[in-house]
Every structure is written in structure tokens, then in C-alpha cells.
């Protein structure tokens, strides 16, 4: 499944990325990398951005980015 399918406050493990793009390096640099725990703290209304926590880093990312992140739920 992808991060966009994860519900709020559930913890998942990052497995990888749906496609191979240079943008993945940015995600890795922000802490979204294989085997790391990831959690959605909140979703904004109307399919707006997600508020995500990975390690000590908190991020906002749009739905389009979340669809690129493959996870497995615990």
C-alpha cells in the first residue's frame, strides 16, 4: 500500500518508492527511507496535504507525494 492509504495515527514502515525519480533522494534526505517508521499525524480537509512524522522530523506533503511512498502497515 502507499502512504496515501494510511489512516491517521497508524504507524507503518517505509518500504520504498513507487517510481524511480531524483526526487526520491530528497525524500530520503528528509528521513523517509526504507525500514523507517512513518506516521500520519493529521490530514487537512478536502484532500489537502498530510502532516507526517518520520523519526524526529515532521513534514507536510501533498497527496501526490504520498502516493509515491510505499509502506507496509504494522
Amino acid at each position, binding site marked *: 500500500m502507499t502512504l496515501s492509504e494510511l489512516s491517521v495515527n497508524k504507524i507503518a514502515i517505509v518500504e520504498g518508492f513507487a517510481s524511480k525519480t531524483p526526487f526520491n533522494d530528497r525524500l530520503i534526505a528528509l*528521513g523517509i527511507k526504507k525500514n523507517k517508521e512513518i506516521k500520519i499525524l493529521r490530514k487537512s480537509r478536502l484532500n489537502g496535504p498530510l502532516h507526517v512524522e518520520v523519526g524526529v522530523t515532521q513534514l507536510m506533503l501533498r497527496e501526490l*507525494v504520498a502516493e509515491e511512498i510505499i509502506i507496509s502497515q504494522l
Partner: protein
Amino acid sequence: MKKTALIGMPNTGKSTFFNKISGASERVGNWPGITVGLSSIKTLINGEMTELIDLPGIYSLNGYSEDEEVVINFIENNKIDQVFFIMNSTQIDRQLPLAINIQKLGIPIIILANMIDEARSLGISFDFDKMGKLLGCPVLPISAKFGRGLEKINKKINAPTKLKINPKSIDEQILSQKVFDETVKMPLILNDKKTRFLDSIFLHPLFGLPVFLIIIFILFQLIYTLGSPIQEYMGDFFSYIQINYLQGLFGNSPPLLKSFLLDGLYAGFTTVATFVPIIIIFFFVMTIVEGSGYFSRAAFLMDKLMEKMGLDGRGFVMMLMGYGCNVPAIMGTKIMRNKNLRFLTMLTIPFSLCSARLQVFLFLTLAFLSSFYGALTLFFLYLLSFFTIFLTAIAFKNKYKNREPMILELPPYRFPTISHIFKRGNQEVLNFLSRATKFIVLGVVAVWILTYFPSEYPVASQNTYAGRIGAFFEPIFTPIGIDQMLIVALIFGFIAKEILIGALAVIFGLEGLELGNHLKEIFSNGQAISFMIFTLIYTPCVSTIATIRNESKSWRLALESVIWSLFLAWVASFIFYQSYEYFVK
């Protein structure tokens, strides 16, 4: 001289560190291989004069963003002796790979583990000596914000360290994970209750937005109720000096010289000067908002709406701030690191109905309309302002398409230090003065030439160049109810929109109430409102254009802003004036 580059990810306190150790010697210079100016300082490190260069914050060395390209090109084209790598101590696991990648380039590196106070208060503990051994470089805990640990930089670097260069074959992710596992102890639960609590309010699904609007309203009031009067007092002060001292001083000079010095140069420089207080106050407040971490929360709240316009939530804040004054709002767009996003935001800001335009509208609505219709007209102008912003974003969003997927850090809430706030305000003013002054003065002098020459005719009369331009363009402006003399006023308004009223006073030789009555006699309500619509939208003032060019380093964008707004102004006035003539008359 030795060259040391300062590299780090965004949100690691890199600029705080740079500001802390930079004295008066800071300068912005050009470097081989890159087009943006970089700040650098000369400082004594290890008993040797060293040039420390502040590079933009980057996430990796793969050149994905413009900032990353700048850093890569800088490293390739300049011989760097060493790198100071600043990292956020709370996020070591994800920041070390970048440090290791820099080591792989063969550049000696010294790691500064910043925000050590924050990390320790979160309950994270470190073994920096071991970390240094594993990485083969010194790792020094510091707190740039409070100036702690900075003295160690000199001492430690003095001690002969054998710097290890990691071979290219090393996997930065694996090595950094190993270093992290062996030297950093994270608490089971991170103790950041403050940020969680504040987020539960600021990002609340229902209350988040109202709270945001209230905060923006307060900031706006703070900036402009403080700044606008100062701006006005300064304007009054400068005209007082002009009337009481300078007029007399140049009393015996030839009229041409006198007019050039007073109405050209003096007017130009004082226009620049009146922006100084508002820029200082603006960046005082914006530095607090930015440094506090609230900015990215605002982005979160407004993102869905702004996404449709090809912008993001931070652009929304800048647009709202533009309702006070466009100039600092455009300067504020530099927080957006993507060029297209920044350019698109810069194109929209000039349509924010700034306080200078409000002065013109208040004068004209008072002169022409009853209080009810006056208020209605003002309300309509604000709506129109929002609408033109929206239209501009839609029209240009494909041209300035932001291809970077949206992902932003939401840093913990912090309060920036007072010295950082002052320094930032100071820097922005110097930046504005050094870059924008010549364009603004040139613009003001150009308008002076148009309205003064040929000098045998009265200033701004029909036979001056401005008058002739007015006559030339009159056929285009007749369908929107604007005549030759109003065009001359609009040419003046290019300097600063509030000058429009002063220009009308010069053109008709009347002031205040008499001017208002005279205008009402010769122009219809429809013409007056059409003139207001045109004033709202047509070309940004010369200071705004100079700032757009200054911040974007692109004459093209500045020109685009002028042409698009003139076109839009004409269309809007045309639609209004023709329907007014058809329906009301």
C-alpha cells in the same frame, strides 16, 4: 587566503551560525560558476585569515533543486580548502549522509552539531568523540543561536587532526546508520509536548484557519499601523525640508537645475528613503514568523486552495502582506526556494491593494460618491484585487510551473534571538538600498523629464512630453473614460501611486476639497470609478518594479509584470466603463 564553505540542510540554523560569527565585514559577492550572489566573511580561523562562504541550504548533492545546483557548481568552480558542515543535532541520522557525500568529494570537513541545547532537552545523548573517530573528522557540538561552543571551533581546528577522506565506494546511508546507532541515544518517547500542543491548535481542522486569519490580521496591523504613519511622517518631513530649506537654498539657481535637483533627484531619493522603516518593521515581524516555524503551518492550512493556483500557502501570506505594501512582500518571497514558484508569486503580489492606492481611492470616493456608494466601491475594489490575483496566477501557472513535488519540513516551534531579528531587518534594508535605489531614482527622474520638458510650458501641461504622450494614447483610453490629463496623472502615479492625487493637484492647480469639487465637475462618476479600477491594476509603482527585478534578477519578469498589468487594467476598466455607460446612463 583559505576558503571555507558553510554547507548544511535547510532548517539547521546555518544562517544563524553565519550571522553569529559575521561582524560588519559581511559582503555579498559573485563567484565563478554560479549566478547568484553569496554572502561571505573574512575571519580568523586557526590563526589564518579565512574566507567563510555561506552556501544555500541543500538536501543532497544530486542537483535536483536550483540551490543544489548552485552548491555543486560552486564546489566545482572554486577551490575550497574545507567545509564546515552544519547539522541539526536532533536529526543526525538523516543529515550525516550529506556530510559523508561531501567527504567523498575529497574536501576536508568539520561537522558542527548545532541546536545541541534543543537536542539535549529532548533527551537525546551523544558520543561526539566516537562519532568523530568513525567519520574521520572533528564533530563539535554547538548552539549557534546562543553562541555556545563557538570558541571551540578555533581550538579544535588548531589541534592537528588527520582528516580522513572517505572512498567513493562507501555507502553513505549504511555508514551514517552505523555511526548513528553507535553514538546517538534517542529517548523512547520524544518529549516535544510544546510543538504537539501548539500544532493541535494551529492545525486544528476547524479553528486552524480562523486562528491563522487572526494572526495574519494582527501581524498586518503591527506592520502597517506602525509603519504607514512613519512612512507618512517621513514623506511630510522630506517635503517640509524641501519647502522650507531646499527651495531657498536653490532660490538663485537656474530653474532647470533647481527643478532637476528637487523634483527629480531629491524626490527619487526620498521615495527610496520612505520605504526603509516599513521594510525594517516588515522583516522584524517576518523573521519572527519564519523562525518560529509558523510559516510552514500557514502553508499547510492554505495549501489546498493555493495548489489550484499553482502556488503554495507561503505565497498566500506574502499576498496578504502585499495589501500593506507590495515592496517588502515581494522581498519576502525569497523564502520560497523554487524559482518558478517565486516568480509566479511575484507576479501576483502587485495586484494587492496597497495602502498607497487606498489613499487615492479614499480621496476619490469621498469627492465623487455618497458614503454608501463610496464604501461599496471600495469593497468592490478589494474584491477586484483578489480576483486579479487569482486571474494572474491562473494565466501564468503553466508558464511558471513548479515541478518540484510539495514537501516541506514543519520544524518545532522556536523563538528567534533578538540579535538575529535585528540583523535580518538590517540586511534586507541594505539589500534594498544598494540594489533598488538606482532604478527607483532613474524612474523618478524619467517621469520628471517627461513632465518638465519642453521647459517653456508649465509643468505637466498639455504640451510637455507627458501631455503629448497623453494625447497620443487618448484614443486608446477614451473607451475607458480616461482623458489626456488623467493619463498624465497616471504617468506620475508610476513613481508611487499615492502621488496621483498630488499630480492631479499640479495638473489642475487646485488642492484638497477644491480639487475634489473641480474633478467632480469635469468627470462623471463612471469615469472616476474607471480611473480607480485602472489605478488599482495598472503597472506596479517604480519601487515595486525595481524590487521585482532585484529579487528575480530578471528584467523579463519585471517587464512581464508591467505589460500584463497594463493590459489587465485596460480590460477591466473597459468592461466596467462600457457597462456603466450602457446600463446607468
